[in-house]
């Protein structure tokens, strides 16, 4: 073969090789997932995740920064120590099982999609999910840590809720945070998990936590309160929460008719004179109502408070200031 032809053939092969390499490279790139989009607000999630977004938007996580009770108790976040959990950086950035750190931006979005799902940019970014979806813009990545109790614990174990659960029989029964607070929609795993984060702001969930019983025995009025439905103490997490048992004579009405029987609460740190009276998982509290006029029927009511204080501590008005949970009438 003449050298010129050889050179021409070599050149042709070179061009073909380069073309093949380029085509192959392109084909290879086309098969790779696109880099995840960068998300700066959870509002950006709504376009693809409308149902989940709507659930979250109505949840207490979404209201973590704006809830009036939080604003009141934190003095409009003048107590800056509250910011850490009420506007946290992404949990996966600080580390699952570690304490969260506060963020500066979009605090008004509270505990948002990004806080729970955003994976660290240093590890490729994307969003933690239960399955991989490489072609989706947020690039969901199956991340088992997303559903572990430790994922919630950075905030919710600050008041030992996760420890309370861990020390109970609930983990052995296979019941975890998600079982109650993020159940599958309609009980169907294919429908995904409910993002309303049902808790004490949801009356049915709240009521399911405890059972109130009463009986007249041996001439005495006995009251029992059992933690039957919370896999942690009742109340839990927030020292700002309290549950109060009140009683009054059946048929009586008005603020003055109530008599305070017992308060269930973990006090604030400065309230060193108060004991912690939390009702732990599966525990039962037994009380006796005294000073009841002979032969009278009484009504015992369990109220729940999201702020521990009464407007007038000397004359609380539980029906107006608290949430009625359970009631029982005890008659001789």
């Amino acid at each position, binding site marked *: 073969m003449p050298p010129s032809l050889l050179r021409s053939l070599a050149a042709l092969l070179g061009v073909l090789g380069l073309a093949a390499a380029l085509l192959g490279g392109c084909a290879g790139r086309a098969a790779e997932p696109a880099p995840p989009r960068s998300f700066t607000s959870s509002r950006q999630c709504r376009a693809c995740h409308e149902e989940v977004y709507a659930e979250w938007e109505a949840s207490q996580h979404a209201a973590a920064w*704006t809830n*009036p009770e939080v604003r*009141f108790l934190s003095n409009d976040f003048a107590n800056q120590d509250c910011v850490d959990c009420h506007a946290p950086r992404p949990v996966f950035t600080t580390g699952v099982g570690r*304490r969260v*750190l506060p*963020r500066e*931006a979009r605090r008004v979005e509270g505990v948002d999609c990004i806080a729970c799902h955003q994976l660290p940019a240093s590890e490729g970014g994307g969003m933690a999910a239960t399955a991989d979806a490489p072609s989706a813009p947020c690039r969901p990545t199956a991340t088992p840590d997303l559903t572990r109790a430790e994922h919630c614990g950075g905030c919710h174990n600050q008041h030992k809720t996760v420890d309370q659960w861990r020390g109970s029989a609930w983990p052995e029964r296979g019941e975890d945070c998600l079982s109650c607070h993020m159940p599958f929609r309609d009980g169907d795993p294919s429908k995904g998990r409910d993002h309303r984060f049902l808790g004490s702001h949801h009356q049915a969930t709240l009521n399911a936590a405890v059972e109130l019983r009463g009986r007249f025995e041996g001439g005495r009025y006995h009251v029992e309160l059992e933690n039957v439905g919370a896999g942690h103490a009742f109340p839990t997490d927030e020292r700002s929460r309290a549950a109060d048992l009140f009683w009054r004579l059946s048929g009586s009405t008005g603020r003055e008719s109530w008599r305070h029987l017992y308060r269930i609460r973990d006090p604030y740190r400065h309230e060193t004179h108060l004991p912690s009276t939390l009702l732990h998982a599966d525990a039962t509290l037994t009380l006796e109502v005294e000073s009841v006029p002979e032969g009278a029927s009484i009504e015992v009511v369990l109220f729940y408070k999201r702020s521990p*204080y009464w407007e007038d501590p000397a004359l609380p008005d539980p029906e107006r200031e608290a949430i009625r949970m359970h009631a029982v009438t005890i008659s001789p």
Partner: protein
Amino acid sequence: MILRPRTALTLASLLLSACGGGAEGAEPASPHASTPPSLAPFELRDTLAACPAPAEASDDDAEVDEAARAEAEGLAILVTSDAGMLQVARDDVARLGDDATAALVALARDGGRPDRERASALDLIDLASERGADGLLSLASDAEPGWMRARAAWRLAEDGPDRLLPALVLRLKYERDHETVVWLAVALARHGNLAGLDGLIAIAGNAQSPAQSSAQRELSALLARFGQESATDLWRAWRRPADERDFAPPARSPALRAALCGWVARLNEFQLRGVDDARFLLQRMDVAAVDVLGEALHDRDVYVRVHAAQCLQRMGRRAAGAGAELLAALGDPELAPHAAVALGQVDHGPAAEVLADLLHPDTAPGLRLACARALGYLSVLSPRRAAAVLSPLLDAEPAELAQAAAESLVRADPDAEEVALRLTVWLEDERVDPASSERALRDWLYARDAGDLLARWDALAPPGRAAEEPSATRARRAARAELVRAHLAR
């Protein structure tokens, strides 16, 4: 965080300036970047390892030599019957040493003893000894009833060592007995720490308080000592000192530094209970803590770094000495937003142009927002310069960035009426935090000396005893917005 080109440039210039400037022939660094950070960014080191170990707490219940106990009890009984023997008895206690001190602490705690005997035991504790000072601190912390804590705090106000300052500041968080609060404040003030001044002022003005007269007397003494006309002036001077060393004595003990280092180390605990305590006391300390916190900005642990920046931010002008370290901390991606906010609060003038540069769209959103917020607090920022750097953000996205720019503009310029008008819109916009604009507008009215208007604004404050209904909050904010609009329309 991925460094955007502009941000990387700014940080690189910071780094260069820290290393003594760029290569010969390179373009000169802009004047704002010429302030050299005192510590090289990106190089984190474990500052705490260099701190002396904190002293171990003494154990009140340690076994005590029986002879010393008997002698100490005898001295307490002697002083109870004859107060004139106090000094002689104290000399004896000093000679007997730690065992006698431990016995006296135990005696003071013993609720079964007569009150006068317990008081005598407390009075006999040798404050000059380490064990004695620790014993008095433990009594001031949790002895019952309240008068025991008050008396122990009163003893510490005599001549307690400065290493107890952090623990005494922390007691302010938990103490509810007024007399004890008064003497804690006095014990702190003795070392130039006025963290207890607000409590002292509140009690001095409370006719119902059994400690009112003590508080009034001690407050007058402090005003005379620090040469201030009124309690408010003294409080302002403490919060925003012209010189951050105004109140601090010239020298502090290594033991105080060790105690502070111990608290800084607690900033990385999981439970916020300890972290909150550390933040509470560190932010109420003075220059002694500023130095330690400035070093902690370079710690390996991100929790220590972030919370150290928060403490400096909350100290405000008292932490001005940490300005250079905070400026250097802008080079730490995890710390940068917190450092930026802190630079504003400590009013570090040299940061102004660095923060202005970081307002560029390529800066990470959290840092950009923090810079916009911080600029409003820098006293060196003239209204004209503020308008030049912040006005372009007034229509920016996200909305909270525009809001932050508007808030900083009104803080920088009492005459920024058009911007104030914009801020009234944020009062009713739930995409942002309206409470933030409420604070900025309130500060703006105060800076304008808008007496009557300010009074009407304050009359629309939320009720104090319970959470406000959202509809009531909206109505209240709308009324405040209308007040400002009506004022500006005139």
